[in-house]
């Protein structure tokens, strides 16, 4: 169980990026976080995984406070961030350095098969396409078997087909061991396809504005009317999350009044 208790973050330059974010995510749950640009989504993920420390509040994993990167929490960034000096297999096994080699090799091979890249094990990252590189990044994050996996807009740099393909891959991988997934995305469809719960954030300072339970059976049909209903719901919440921020600005409020 991952719990956030009144997590807030103020950057050194005075930007108030997060304020009093509270929520818990149970084991195996998939949560999507959506919100306008700059509303603190990345900040939130970085606080959860311990890359940054929150200025207020705390993050608890199974009752233990997370203050620095934790072995049970993995993260996938927006870019693959593969290490160019390691082969694909070397990258995937990066987090298993302390395991005996046979075990490492077996787990790397298994993970590469799962993401459909077993024939690329000996290639260099520069020889991969964007989608393949992101799949390697997913395998790398999953191989240490994290209990919580954070994804910061992992597919946003990819074309629509590859994105849908990778969403399916991700669900397949999730079904293996059912880690908790927390996924930041700009793509409402992606959130509705993947998540059990969608949290809409509001900017300045970033906080949770609304939470939508998707409550759809898997696998989800993107064409179904239920899917569409949930999507509209999230869209409406997103719209509302952006509006008050505009009104709160005194000058613009005056302009609207005129």
């Amino acid at each position: 169980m991952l719990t956030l208790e009144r997590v807030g973050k103020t950057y050194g330059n005075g930007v108030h990026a997060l304020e009093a974010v509270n929520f818990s995510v149970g084991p195996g749950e998939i949560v999507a976080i959506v919100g306008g640009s700059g509303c603190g989504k990345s900040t939130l993920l970085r606080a959860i995984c311990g890359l940054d420390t929150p200025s207020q509040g705390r993050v608890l994993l199974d009752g233990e406070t997370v203050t620095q990167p934790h072995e049970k929490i993995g993260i996938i960034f927006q870019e693959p961030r593969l290490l160019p000096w390691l082969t694909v297999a070397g990258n995937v096994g990066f987090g298993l350095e302390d395991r005996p080699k046979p075990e490492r090799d077996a787990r790397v091979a298994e993970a590469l098969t799962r993401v459909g890249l077993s024939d690329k094990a000996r290639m260099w990252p520069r020889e991969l396409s964007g989608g393949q590189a992101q799949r390697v990044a997913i395998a790398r994050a999953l191989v240490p078997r994290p209990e919580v996996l954070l994804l910061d807009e992992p597919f946003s740099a990819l074309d629509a087909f590859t994105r849908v393909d990778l969403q399916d891959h991700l669900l397949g991988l999730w079904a293996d061991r059912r880690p908790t997934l927390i996924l930041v995305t700009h793509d409402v469809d992606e959130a509705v396809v993947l998540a059990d719960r969608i949290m809409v954030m509001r900017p300045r300072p970033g906080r949770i504005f609304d939470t939508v339970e998707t409550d759809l059976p898997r696998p989800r049909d993107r064409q179904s009317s239920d899917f569409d209903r949930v999507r509209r719901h999230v869209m409406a919440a997103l719209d509302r999350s952006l509006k008050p921020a505009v009104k709160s600005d005194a000058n613009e409020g005056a302009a609207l009044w005129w």
Partner: protein
Amino acid sequence: MSAAIEPAAQPKRNDAKRAKSVLSRYSSPALGLFLPLVLALGWELAVRAGFSNGRLVPPPSVIYATFAELAKTGELQRHAAATLARVVSGFGIGVIAGTVLGAITGYSTLVRRFIDPSLQALRAIPSIAWVPLFILWLGIFEASKVTLIAVGVFFPVYLGVMGAVTSVDRKIVEVGRAFRLSGFNMVRRILLPAVLPAYVIALRSGLGLGWMFVVAAEFMGASEGLGFLLVDGQQLGKPAQIVAAIVAFAVIGKITDWLIVGIAAPFLRWEDRFKSQASQD
């Protein structure tokens, strides 16, 4: 129609491609050799035909004879070994100092603010200008020569390492942090491989300067070394000896450079370079 032709045409095209790549692999060094060979041959013929006595510009055959003579008496080896020893010790000291200081200043902004300006100021001084001081301090024997070479090697290595460390991608470092690397493991698994390509370049330019400065150092007065052969050849009016020493410099300098490249190559196969990409096609 075209589908039927394709399979038959394929191997031929591959053969042609392979033949072309073999050709280009051997022909491009050959192309580079063409001009010097023609000039050397022309000069040799001109001297033989009596157009010139070749006293000031000795023809290749005379240079070769001098070279062979020096090698046979063991003189060449003795002088080359003396020069090589100076370069190796100066290079070693310069590389160690440059690497340590470059790594520290690259890593810590505070230290960089403290010592980098002074080092940059020292760098602005032409290193040869130190020679009189080094001789006063360290005498005219090996110590002052090795110091001069070490100073020459130090700056490119220092600058290269500092630049490489400061420009390591923050995003890659973050990957290391996310996998809970810190301290020694962060250096070993992230920072070292990330700076390696730039480090090799820094070492190579340091070595180049090392060879340059060994000549200056040996001009300062030496009883042995390839630089001594140069001075000696000038004073005794033996241009062939000068050219032979120059050739020895070129050969040994190139070999030491190849050594660095060769040792580093297995660690740099991953590099995504325009050059390596182009040579594969």
